[in-house]
């Protein structure tokens, strides 16, 4: 699929958790990481990234601290907390189950019904 897809409602949180699960990242880094692993197929509104980060931090799933970026600038880095790890796991399972079910439904042929 060449066209970029809009994010499904509620999936941004999961993607952020996944992105930071691979190592601490700053906000811009998270954006790049998601684009990179989705092979640029997902469109993320930059403006909505930060409110999501703040919300996740407020809920205790990610933690932040100030560090130095690749080009020696001060940047805020986010990492996954233990609670965040568990959250990511359950969310991923839920997502997969859901995807299976939906896929199954869509695969069904008239004879099966």
């Amino acid at each position, binding site marked *: 699929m060449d066209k970029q897809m809009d994010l499904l409602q509620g999936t941004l949180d999961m993607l952020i958790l996944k992105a930071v699960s691979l190592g601490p990242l*700053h*906000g*811009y880094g998270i*954006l790049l990481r998601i684009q990179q692993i989705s092979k640029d197929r997902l469109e993320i*509104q*930059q*403006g*909505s990234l*930060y*409110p*999501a980060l*703040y*919300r996740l931090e*407020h*809920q*205790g799933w990610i933690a932040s601290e100030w560090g130095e*970026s690749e*080009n020696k*600038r*001060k*940047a*805020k880095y986010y990492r996954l907390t233990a*609670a965040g790890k568990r959250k990511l796991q359950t969310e991923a399972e839920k997502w997969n189950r859901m995807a299976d079910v939906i896929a199954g439904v869509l695969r069904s042929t008239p004879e099966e019904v």
Partner: protein
Amino acid sequence: MTLWSRIRLWLRALLKRSRMESDMDAELRFHIEAFAEDLARKGVPREEAMRRARIEFGGLERAKEECRDARGLNFLDSLVQDLRFGLRMLGKSPRFTAIVVFTLALGTGATTAVFSIVDAVLLRPLPYKGGERLVAVWCTELGQSGSKIFAPYRDFEEFKAESHGFEELAAATWARAGEILSWRGSPHEVLSIPASGEFFSLLGIPAAQGRTFGPEDARNGCTVVLADLFWRNELGAAPDIVGGPLTLNGQPCTVVGVMPREFQFYPKQTSLWTLITRNSQLTDKPFDSAVGIFGRLKPGVTTARAEKELLELHKRVVKDSPAGSWVEGIAPIVRDLREEFTWLAGRNLHTALLVLLTAVGLVLLIACLNVANLLLSRSVERERELAVRAALGSGRLRLLRQLLVESILLASLGTMAGVVIAVGAVRYLSSTKLVELPPGNPVTVNLHVLGFTIFLATLTGLLFGLAPGWQALQIDLNEVLKRSGRTSTWKGHRASKFLVISQVALSMVLLAGAGLLIESVYRMGAVPLGFQPSHVLTAQLALAPSAYTDLSRRSSFYERLVARLDALPGIERAALSSGLLGFEGGGSSRLSLAGRAAIENLEAVRTQQISSGYYRVLSIPLLQGRQFDSRDREDSQPVAIVNQQLVHRYFPKENPIGRQIKLGKPEDKAPWLTIVGVVGNEKRATVYKEMDYEEPAIVYLPLQQSSPLSMLLVMRATGNPLGLSPLLQGEVSQIDRNVPVYGIETMIQRDSELLAHPRFRAIMMGVFAALTLLLAEIGVYSVLAQSVAHRTQEIGVRLALGAQSADVSRLVLRQGMGMVAIGLIAGLLAALGLTRFLSAMLYGVRATDPLSFSAVVLVLMSVAFLACYIPARRAMRVDPIVALR
């Protein structure tokens, strides 16, 4: 995440607010710059890269706002912001703020003050043990519904011994005249209340000093417990009073205790309580002496059930009673004690308080409507500000909240000022004792009352804040922003009109009520009472029974006293009477006419012992025969003077002079009295109804032939009657040092006491009605003035096209008076329906008295005309050239 760590995070966020803000700025800046650098690396020029980065990011401020929201900071934060902004807005228009706060302060202040009375009198249980289960047991005379009299002492004995519905029963009686207490040689007139041994334990109040009655006192002679007020004011708060001896009516008594300062029972002015012991008057003649019975019901027992039980017990008492006793003609009734206290304080007090609370609630409502109106017109002025804020991204709800915060701020300020007013009013009320309030709970602005006030404040804040808030939600951004600042669609108009019409209607209701009450007081006060009260001074005096056992000693004292007073230069004439004019109640007795059977069940025939000058002092006309004079002596023929009412009832179309009557049955031992004169009637207050007079049949007896120990002294003064008061005690002491004079008042003062309650509520209603009238007229004026201001251009066009200035003013007047007329009609209809709740408080007018209503309409119309005339004049003076430029 635990709740605690969440709160900690939140608190940290709150405290380190500015740090977080700069962090957020730095983070977002970093993002945009990093993005721009990436673009630059791809060959986009630096300037262009920054621009594209910003555009890609989207609304920076909105993102920030959402970040703050995400941290849960925003709500509180914006509330603080709203508050600050609100305060600044209010500070910017101090006149507006002052008017609103003042209006609200009057409304809440008055409401709080009235509610604190209602709370103390009608809501809170009496401050005694099991206060909500305390009852009074009266007796009602069969065939006279609504009558309440004391019960025979024998009933009390029977109830105490046999009833099961009560935890405790006690007796006390205040049906007696002044007594004399001597302490350290000086006489004091006291109100002493004989009470049974259970009295204080029933109420569950211990003494502040010493103790209350105990079982050991029953064997002793006379035991008394003092009231704090009497001990402080009359006995100088003597520290050694407990255990000390004093003399009550010549009898030695022991003081066992002094009650706490806050303890009160009916009557409030009680000086002391004496223990009813085994061989007192009450216990010796249990069928003939009357007492009030008070009890605490067992939990779950209703007054109806208790009444049923007592009725059965009373039947046993009747069986034991001597034949023909008054006990046969009565039946016990059980009533809630607090209700009875209220009834005793004022026959209509309960209703009057509810009426006043309703009235003051209406005042508050009108005040709220006025404030709503002011806010509404302000929100029209602020339309542009609100529209600009909405255009810049403020949510409508946020705007609504801003307006509500402002309203609540105003309400809080108004309430605080109102509480100050209420505290002042309550203090004033309790210090001046304008009206008698029942004993029990003192009237104070306590936490209970404050809770009510805070509830009111919130309610009013919401009430008057909603209208302009709703208005703000309706703003059409395009419309408002397109317009120049000068004109605005005057959308608030319809809402304002509605508010003003309601105000006029409510004001009409209160004015009608006040009009009726005021007219009643006026009419009741203007009724000729049958005697001339001006220049008359009255005073009480009481003789000690031990020193004045026989009739001749008493009458010689009285004769000497009258002679002394008659000789005083400031006194035209002095006389004595056993009765208190206009106040005497109860006391019916059988009347026999010579040659006819006794008249049974007659309506009260009163007896009154008087000295010969009585009719002259009070200017009561002698219609037939003669007055008492020196011919009437202890050993001469027993005589009586009767009034016209008695003649009218029992000697219609006959000459009563020379006829003989007897107070009692024909076979009784009492002497036959020969009627020697007939005098005019005196009007007297009735016992069971407040707004009424009765003209009882009275039999007057000469002092020489029958004189009681306690007398009322009446004197007609040549000048100011109160000027005589310092002389009185001296004159009496010249004859006997041990006779106290007390209760010195002019007859006018006495009469006005009779109208204290009606006058008080009429004044209150009048003040409330005047307030509402003022508020409503301010409402009419401000709506019209606003409308004229908004229509300046239109008026200018009319004038330019040839309209006369009179036409313009008629236009405005018609608009204003139209609103007033609608409100007036609505109010009139409401008033016609509501005033019948006042009927018990009216005298001489019907609840729908057309005259009274027309007067009120006239007052309202003329004040309303004034309120309309000022804006109309302004409209007339519009200069078309200026208006159209």
